[in-house]
């Protein structure tokens, strides 16, 4: 071993380089991330989870929910729609602009688009194509916009509207991204399923809510007990084969309630600077000043 120092130096250099690349640089880049203003009301995002939700995360971890559920939405690309936000008064110029942007439009379709604004004119374009189309629609008084549409299999499954980014996990300690998807991704489960009693019944017996579900039941998170003087208000409404004998009721334990509070806090679907979402086109002539509908409106299908 007369080359010992050389080998030592080589190994040190290799380890130091990868440590710098994988620990130091990312830490410099995103180690100091903070809450940002996001969402329709520009509130702080991500919200600091409530104490109950934090205990729920511990239950989630202890029960190994992450063996079957990921919390990471992937996005493979983005498409662009051109939307006519408002037609304005310059109808003739706009009509010819519309025909230039989308050759082959019949006059009836043109007037339909102009009447029903805000209405998409073209969909699924690349950014360059969308910009060319937008130029045709730049008519004084009318308003057209390019709308970003994130795409990717996870987004098509309705698991989220955009990719997950580091900001989404600011308070997740430990991180349970997971890598196996036996069940659906839960990043935006709170938006898909807001009803706490649905979650409790689903945890008690998944098959009672989803036919043929292969998710295991978590009955031990519930307590079956004799009804006291009054039935408990949070007893499960069990029907069919789950029904318990009269005089008894099934109530969620502290752990089940915390777990559901955690599930209902999983709501990562607001646009962020690094993962933008389309802002619904706002009519400039809108007479109300309702916050524009950026609220979660995607009727998300699950993988059933």
């Amino acid at each position, binding site marked *: 071993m007369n080359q010992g120092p050389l080998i030592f130096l080589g190994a040190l250099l290799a380890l130091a380089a990868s440590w710098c690349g994988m620990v130091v640089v990312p830490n410099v880049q995103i180690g100091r991330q903070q809450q940002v203003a996001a969402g329709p009301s520009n509130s702080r995002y991500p919200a600091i989870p409530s104490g109950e939700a934090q205990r729920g995360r511990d239950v989630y971890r202890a029960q190994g929910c992450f063996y079957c559920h990921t919390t990471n939405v992937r996005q493979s690309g983005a498409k662009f729609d051109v939307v006519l936000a408002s037609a304005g008064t310059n109808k003739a110029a706009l009509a010819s602009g519309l025909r230039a942007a989308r050759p082959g439009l019949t006059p009836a379709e043109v007037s339909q688009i102009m009447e029903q604004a805000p209405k998409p004119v073209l969909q699924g374009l690349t950014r360059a194509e969308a910009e060319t189309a937008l130029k045709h629609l730049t008519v004084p008084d009318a308003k057209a916009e390019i709308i970003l549409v994130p795409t990717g299999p996870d987004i098509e499954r309705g698991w989220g509207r955009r990719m997950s980014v580091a900001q989404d996990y600011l308070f997740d300690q430990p991180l349970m991204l997971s890598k196996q998807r036996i069940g659906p991704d839960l990043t935006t489960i709170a938006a898909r399923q807001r009803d706490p009693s649905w979650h409790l019944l689903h945890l008690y017996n998944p098959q009672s809510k989803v036919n043929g579900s292969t998710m295991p039941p978590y009955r031990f998170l519930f307590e079956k007990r004799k009804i006291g003087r009054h039935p408990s208000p949070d007893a499960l409404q069990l029907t069919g084969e789950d029904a318990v004998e009269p005089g008894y009721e099934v109530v969620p334990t502290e752990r089940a309630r915390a777990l559901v509070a955690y599930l209902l806090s999983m709501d990562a679907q607001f646009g962020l600077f*690094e993962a*933008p979402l389309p802002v619904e086109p706002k009519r400039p002539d809108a007479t109300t000043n309702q916050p524009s509908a950026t609220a979660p409106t995607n009727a998300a299908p699950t993988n059933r």
Partner: protein
Amino acid sequence: MKPDPKKSSNAARPNGPGAGKGSSPNVSAKSPANEAEPTAGLAHTPIWLIILFAALFYWGQLYLDNHAGGFDPQVYEPYESAKLVKALNTGADDLAAKGEPLYGMVCAACHQPNGSGGALAPPLAGSEWVTAADPSRLIRIPLHGLSGPIQVKGQDYTFPSGMTAMGEVLSDDSLAAILSYIRQSWGNSAPQVTPAQVAKVRQDTANRPMNGTATWTADELLKVPLAQ
């Protein structure tokens, strides 16, 4: 001298499974005690290896150039560059959206949430003061306040208390957001007011106090030249 069994087994090691092909098969047979400890020598790195590494390094650089997003923490796949991400955030510099909550806090008490005005202030919805293409008069109103008779949408108003000056408490950004909001709400559709425009007016009126002692009057404002 009889070979020490321990040493001989040591010396035999180069013949083991890991031994180099070049070593003589019967090292142990030679007198191992006299033989020096085997050492590793230095050899020149073959030129093809250097070229291979250079090529790999170059490819790595190209890959990072194309996929690392300039090492910007705000750039994630599938977006390529900070410039693109910025361009996609059209909604983010939507000043009017930012101004909406501010308007509710600062102005709505007098001008009403729907901009209709009332007993305390004239309307903003449809007001030509609000929607003028050049906002330099409009910006002056909240900066230094406004009092005296005023005509809005052809109607004469007189409010004894006038409008307070808010230039000291509102930043350029907030004021730009509020004014953009009132210019683009309730049927108004005028271009947004940028923070730079507010800063410019502040500069032009630097010697006018913003503490409510030097409020504008409508007549005075009408003398402020507008860009065409």
